[in-house]
């Protein structure tokens, strides 16, 4: 299971360099398009301008209020869906009958584009963070609850029987058997839940909001400040990449060796 760690260093280095080269080529194409081929700077600003704007955004700290709003919505939504999804998923997984009833139901709802409910959520909770939190929590609830049901539902019976024969009580059974057995699947679900929370929070900010990074980006586009808009996009990508690598580390920690 630890394929990555066993890969020879040279191979890992080569693939990292190829990835870096890919990004470099994209940047060069971008530079050529704007500075040589004459693509309109309203459609595509020069990467150099974008860089200056990015430095300005960070130096002036202009991003701070928007980042605070977006991250606040993100973590509130994710906390709600995690708490509800994991708890409900665990209890559903305790009964084969409940699994039979609820798993197809949740899977069917998961397939609906829940973003359609955004107008309704805005009517109920207004243009502020509450509607983004509610939408993010609704959307991410389903992958989380489904993976929790699967994770706890497929624990090897032999392990449960073995623990019972050795005298494990209910708390020990949960802590030492059910939880570690389910953890890799549950964590994969949380990871997916986190990604869709992020998508729906930033996405709904671009549709109707008063603040937040998504709102800022749309606002800049409407004012034709394209270089600054691109700077914000780069900024969001960097934040997301950082959060994702933290999540990957957490997920790897829960995996069995």
């Amino acid at each position, binding site marked *: *299971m630890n394929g990555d760690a066993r890969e020879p260093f040279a191979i890992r280095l080569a693939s990292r360099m190829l990835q870096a080269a890919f990004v470099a080529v994209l940047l060069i194409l971008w530079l050529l398009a704007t500075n040589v081929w004459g693509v309109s700077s309203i459609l595509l600003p020069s990467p150099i301008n974008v860089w200056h704007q990015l430095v300005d955004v960070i130096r002036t700290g202009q991003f701070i209020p928007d980042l605070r709003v977006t991250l606040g919505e993100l973590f509130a939504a994710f906390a709600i869906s995690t708490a509800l999804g994991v708890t409900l998923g665990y209890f559903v997984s305790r009964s084969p009958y409940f699994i039979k009833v609820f798993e197809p139901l949740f899977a069917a709802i998961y397939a609906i584009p829940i973003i359609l409910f955004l107008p309704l959520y805005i009517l109920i909770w207004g243009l502020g963070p509450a509607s983004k939190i509610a939408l993010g929590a609704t959307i991410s609830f389903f992958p989380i609850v489904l993976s929790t049901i699967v994770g706890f539902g497929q624990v*090897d019976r*032999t*392990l449960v*029987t*073995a*623990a*019972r*024969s*050795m*005298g*494990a*009580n209910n708390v*020990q059974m949960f802590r*030492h*058997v059910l939880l*570690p*057995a389910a953890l890799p699947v549950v964590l994969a679900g949380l990871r997916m839940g986190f990604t869709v929370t992020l998508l729906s929070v930033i996405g709904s900010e671009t549709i109707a909001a008063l603040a937040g990074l998504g709102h800022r980006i749309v606002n800049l586009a409407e004012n034709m400040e394209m270089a600054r808009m691109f700077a914000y996009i780069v900024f969001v990508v960097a934040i997301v990449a950082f959060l994702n690598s933290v999540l990957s580390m957490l997920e790897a920690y829960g995996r*069995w*060796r």
Partner: protein
Amino acid sequence: MTPAEVAIRVRDVSHQFGEAGQTRHVQALQNTSLDVTRGELHCLIGPSGCGKSTLLSVIGGLMTPTTGTVTVAGKPVRGPMPHDLAFVFQENALFPWNTVFENIVLGMKFQGVRKSERNERARRALEAVGLDAFAEHFPGQLSGGMRQRAALARALSLETDILLMDEPFGALDEQTRMVLGEDLSVLLSRSHKTIVFVTHSLGEAVFLADRVSVFSARPGSIKEIITIDEPHPRKPSFMTAPKFHALRDQLYTLLHDEIRKTISEAAQPRRRYDETAKAGGGAA
């Protein structure tokens, strides 16, 4: 046999899965009685589905029989008795997320052994099965034979008087099985444990057991008990002795008819299953 010499007393145990008349109704055990003597290694052998594993689960308190009683160490069995009996399962009963050492320590934690004693006992158990060098390995990094040694070490560390082994070497290749069998014979001749051992292998039964209970086809009950009068630890040379072969042949003769019965019974439902599968395939 005085009551003190009886470690496990099984009386008129019957067990059925599902209710009579249901499609999934199976009468697994019928009116089975058995006394396992203290310190003996008792093998249960029989055709597939004869209920020998069910009987083991009933003895271990993992299953409540439909009727009948089991007494272990003078106490009626009503649920798992971790202080009196330990299980070794067929395979994959080690926790894959824990190392071999952690697996053994965890078993003792479940059983309620004091923390200060656990590490020392785990080390001793690993030494006894010859796995001390692999304490920090995860089960996934071990061969099948080593995993079963580790499972045996976990059971030994619980220091129960009784071991219940459900085809512990069933998933292993013939050579590994033989070597583990020899090791087990040596190990157990020292420990004076009472062991009930379910197996499919005639050779394993003759080589390991003091007595062998031969089961009839489903609904299973004990057809005959054979005594293997040969002191432990048994040497590999026992396997080539005429006595070994005579006993093995005797077991085979007893089992042969029962296995035929099981196979001819199994053939009929399977034909019906094939027809359903075909009908289903046509509809789709």
